[in-house]
């Protein structure tokens, strides 16, 4: 015996979305998926990787990215019509959140030893080359701003101007910060100029 409830489609969709948390319940959404959700699926992994390079902890990195997307949605809505460059917005948001997380962590470390969760797992270490591990450890000894600039310059491949926009500093500040960071890394890694 089949019992079919004659629920209208919008009501059915709303009910399913309430139970599953899917995005179909957004009012005013067009027939396709909202632009912010497409952007989320397209950029999430890369942004999490960027955040991991900053905070070196996957859980924190994922939280940072979720918070940045939530802030973007709250401020500009689902269709992102009022945002000129969502990528730049997201990069800047991740950098700001990572900076805050690092500063909080360093403040906490002044009072307590580092948590075990922030160190890479043993199998993860084994996968890395010895040279990579040395470089990453040296990166951890830079200041927060130096690390931001190095990651954006050598992993995101941003120009000095793009880094300046993302960090909301002058181009000269980016240049001098990068120069000091490289000098410090050379000393830490025993490289010759």
């Amino acid at each position: 015996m089949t019992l079919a409830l004659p629920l209208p489609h919008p009501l059915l969709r709303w009910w399913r979305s309430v139970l599953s948390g899917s995005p179909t319940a957004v009012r005013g959404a067009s027939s396709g998926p909202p632009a912010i959700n497409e952007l989320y699926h397209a950029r999430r992994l890369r942004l999490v990787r960027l955040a991991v390079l900053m905070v070196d902890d996957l859980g924190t990195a994922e939280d940072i990215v979720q918070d940045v997307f939530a802030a973007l949605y709250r401020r500009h809505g689902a269709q992102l019509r009022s945002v000129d460059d969502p990528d730049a917005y997201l990069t800047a948001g991740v950098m700001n959140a990572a900076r805050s997380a690092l500063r909080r962590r360093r403040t906490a470390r002044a009072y307590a030893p580092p948590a075990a969760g922030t160190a890479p797992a043993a199998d993860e270490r084994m996968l890395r080359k010895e040279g990579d591990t040395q470089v990453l450890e040296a990166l951890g000894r830079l200041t927060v701003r130096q690390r931001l600039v190095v990651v954006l310059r050598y992993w995101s491949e941003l120009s000095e101007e793009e880094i300046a926009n993302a960090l909301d500093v002058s181009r000269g500040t980016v240049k001098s910060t990068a120069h000091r960071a490289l000098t410090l890394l050379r000393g830490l890694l025993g490289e010759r100029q």
Partner: protein
Amino acid sequence: MSALEGRLRAALDARARSVTAEDLAPAVPPTAMALRRRFPAGWRLGAAAVGAAAALALVGLAVFPAEHDSPVPSPPGAPGAVYPSGSPGSSDPSPWPEPSLPSSPSPLINEFPTGGPGDISPSTTP
């Protein structure tokens, strides 16, 4: 590109690639994040419980229809209900008076004139 810059790029790339899509938590798009805030897990669980109870009730009504609403006719040979009789030997065993129709029409009906227009006679003459 200096050797140091090459090492930096290689190390950062290796670290980034160590994070894959499989490592990430299940995706929760921003619109769903807002929805979850609007309907927290407790509310969604409550709504699911209410929905399940309603569905069970509907299924129960469909499978077991309400039988007490319609009286079941007794089979012809079965003994009927026994009512207490008023007195032994009484000709009318039913204690309830049966409704009786009036034997004659109501007198009110006969108060109206039954004749035609010709039966009406003017009381005064001009």
